[in-house]
């Protein structure tokens, strides 16, 4: 049985070895073998050949072995805490989005070095290692560079975040279909960022509830640092409904 490496990065970080395929692993992590756990799971598939003594990956073959009854090892935690920053960007494979009931959508990633035509402001859901929701003038590329810039006093080595929707209607109100709690506060934050050009960003919520999270995703997910960015584009709703209907129905539940 092949050993896969998965990097969980939805608010908590862990590098897990598993003999399950990504879809099975996502389902297992979301719902368990007995229905005791619930919750969305987001994880990267890591190049299985990647090795790091720092993360004890030289022991992966020894530790991630089938059970005595021949069933595959579902999860073997290899490393916890500050894992994401220590895996080189080149080792990151697909991003898997798992719903609360274990449906998995896999997104392909690509290198990203583009400036958006859209001017913003943008709203980002920081997923790892930070967990705030922020609004900012900065486009995803600039935002990534800014927050991972070692030259600034406040930075992180690497950031994983999602670009989330902030459509406004003609009255300047947040579009009614967006499931954010306290939309008027988001409108205030957006207005403040717009009115103060020197203010690069504003925290909307330090620990926002991620309800209906997958319904809020705009362009996609970004993983990056000062050396580069991996971008995982997110399909539009029509594509999700048509081509990933089961997942989308599940994702729409919350």
């Amino acid at each position, binding site marked *: 049985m092949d050993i896969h490496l998965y990097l969980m990065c939805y608010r908590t970080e862990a590098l897990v070895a598993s003999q399950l395929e990504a879809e099975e692993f996502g389902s297992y992590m979301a719902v368990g073998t*007995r229905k005791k756990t*619930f919750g969305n799971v987001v994880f990267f598939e890591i190049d299985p050949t990647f090795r790091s003594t720092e993360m004890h990956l030289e022991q992966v073959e020894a530790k991630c072995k089938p059970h005595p009854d021949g069933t595959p090892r579902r999860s073997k935690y290899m490393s916890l805490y500050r894992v994401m920053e220590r895996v080189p960007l080149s080792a990151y494979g697909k991003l898997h989005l798992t719903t609360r009931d274990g449906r998995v959508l896999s997104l392909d990633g690509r290198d990203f070095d583009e400036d958006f035509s859209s001017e913003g402001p943008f709203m980002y859901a920081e997923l790892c290692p930070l967990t705030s929701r922020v609004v900012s003038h900065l486009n995803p590329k600039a935002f990534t560079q800014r927050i991972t810039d070692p030259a600034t006093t406040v930075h992180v080595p690497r950031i994983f975040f999602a670009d989330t929707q902030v459509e406004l209607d003609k009255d300047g109100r947040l579009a009614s279909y967006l499931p954010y709690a306290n939309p008027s506060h988001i409108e205030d934050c957006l207005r403040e960022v717009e009115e103060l050009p020197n203010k690069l960003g504003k925290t909307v919520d330090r620990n926002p509830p991620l309800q209906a999270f997958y319904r809020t995703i705009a362009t996609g997910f970004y993983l990056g640092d000062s050396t580069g960015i991996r971008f995982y584009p997110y399909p539009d709703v029509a594509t999700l409904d048509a081509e990933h209907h089961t997942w989308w129905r599940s994702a729409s*539940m919350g």
Partner: protein
Amino acid sequence: MPIAHIFDPHVGPSSSFSLFAVADGIDSAARALPAWWHVTWICAVIALVSAMGFYRWIMAQSEGNERMQEIAQYVRDGAYAYLRRQYRVVAIFFVVVSALLAVMAFGLHVQHPLVPFAFLTGGFFSGLAGFFGMKTATSASARTAQGASHSLDQGLKIAFRAGSVMGLTVVGLAMLDISLWFLYLYKFHHVLFGGEPMSLETITVVMLCFGMGASSQALFARVGGGIYTKAADVGADLVGKVEAGIPEDDPRNPATIADNVGDNVGDVAGMGADLYESYAGSILATMALGVAAVSFGGVPEGFDNAFSAQLAFLSAPMVLASLGILLSLAGIFLVTTKEGASMKELMWALNKGIWGSSALVVVVAMVILPMLLPASIAWGVVAAVTIGLVVGLIIGYGTEYYTSAEYKPTKGIADQAVSGTGPLIIDGIAAGLMSAWIPITAVCIGMMVSFGMCDGFDNLAMGLYGVGMASVGMLSTLGITLATDAYGPIADNAGGNAEMAGLPKEVRERTDALDSLGNTTAAVGKGFAIGSAALTSLALLAAYVEEVRVGIHREAAAVYQVEEGAGYTAVDLGFGKYGLYVAGADGSHRENYTISTLRSNAEHAVEVLVDGKPVDMIINHLGGSVRQATDDPLISQLVATTPAGLFDFMDYYQVTLMNPKVLVGIFAGVLMVFVFGAMTMKAVGRAAMAMVMEVRRQFREMPGIMEGTTTPDYARCVAISTAGAQREMIRPSLLAVLAPVLVGLLLGVAGVMGLLVGGLCSGFAMAVFMANAGGAWDNAKKLIETGQHGGKGSDAHKSAVVGDTVGDPFKDTTGPSLNILIKLMNMVSIVFAGLVVKFAPEISSFLGMGQ
């Protein structure tokens, strides 16, 4: 018991009332079946044959792939399992009640001997209609999904024709039951068992009693089905959706099949039994009122004798309802649509059928009723029928206004969801409360106008007949209105089947469109059910008084004695009631003029009519003594010539707001609605809890369910919901049956009248409130799920889900059950009237509460 001899007093100018017995006046040998009777059975058979044709057509359609068939089979198995168990419980109830009725009929002589059998047939046919409806519905869901994979029109056609099977089966079986009972009682009973032919009064009153069978079956179907469907729904939602995050109709949810079964047992079988009872009840009550109208109001102009007048008034509701079946059938064929139809076009497709049938009923009424009734009366009745139809449509569309997400009230509730659960609940309750104004106003105006159009302000009995005809008019198109109603759950199940079977997007979009339309039509159907319950109840109230009269008759008939050589013999029954025996010329006697109920005193005398002519007699109610009229100078002025009418009975039984028994009865009626409501809602809570525990258990003990590698134990969830529903429906159902009897025995006829009025007024308003508030909460949630106010998963959605959970038992359990509670209490009162008439005065006297 003292025997009172009748003297032959003088007669003079009338100053008071007299009694009511009207003889048949027709020689039994000459009694031929009227030609119009053939219309009734022919139309009933056409309805049943058409239903069979639709059923075969549906069964000839493809049920789709193996997965679709498998899912449909799960639902079918669950539905049959439910029905089997339900019918077992109901059978026990029917055996026990039939035995009680038999004791009343053969032991206590307070009920007609045929009533136990009428009761059984009413229940049997109602159950049969529910069975056929559900059999078709559960066979049609996968076929509708498969039809939708070809075209929207094909999906609509299959779902709607499956609903039509329910509609046509209900009206066909109800009309066949009425028609056959009439045939037997009118033509054959006296031939088989000897004696005089039954009077039309007796025939209608006996037939009315089969309504109790239908009502009882309906109550069990509605309460049981309502508890079942909501227990399954809540279980599926709370654990499946909220805890596990599983979407609607996901095959991994153990309760999802039970949920789909629930749609069928609640909205198809329950609704069918409910409207079967309304349909039959309105026709039977109006028939009884038509006959009583002649008895109480005299022979109208245009008739040769009382019998022909009674027969004509009796025929009108039967013939109109029969022809309504054919017109409904015509309307069913009008329902088609084109591919890619919008919601408006789909709605128009159904409205074409409903409005077309309604318009045709008015036209047919304008042709037929003047043929059956004298022109002076017929046009008033035509107006009443038209008003009934209009009131039905107003209530239906009023319901749609207050529950559809396209209109302000439901949008307002969705708006409140943004502020939280509390405001959403408050706004939903407010919208539900306010929504009562349309049906109540429509029923009030409809009642007054139909009453007035039939000359009710001059002739009370005829006015009541007009109200009865309005309710018959409202339900004359039941064949198609019920089809639109039963279509909803079929389309809903088709959507579930398409989802579970993973059919392509365009199929799901089509079934979603059909389902969405079904929600609206279901709301309209519920409006019809509630409105008809209110209109029919006035007719049933009047029919109750008629049954009281007959009850006194039976009481007297059971005890009178014949004294050798005496022309008249009166028996003091106590409490101002006298049995009077009048010998016939050939030594025989006729029961139907053997009663006197009303008191004579210094200013009033009672009088019995025989063959429409007054019998010269006066009975003093005090102590059973008799005095010769000529001994008292006042007596010469006390000749009553007017038959005792409804008001005389009201007077005799002191049915006045100043009588505390009436007020206590009204309070009891109101209390019944509240207690019954509480019991049914608590029942849902308990049954749902069992389902929640089971779904959790399956997730816990069957780990492969969530992975999709193990099939959940659907049957266990179905069994739990079924057991819960059967267990929980017994207490509220018993309450509904026992309360009118107990109130009657304790508070007498006055108390029963109060109970029925209190139950009717509060029950009608409460039913509208609950059905509409629940519908509005449900659609507010659906509106949010379209993306408004944050859509699924948002805080607003969470609030809306709570509102929907609260509203579920409102709209699908308690609200619809209240319709039947109202009618069942009426029916029980009617059937047990003889018992109350005989024993209530004695109990009341024993308790020191007067008579």
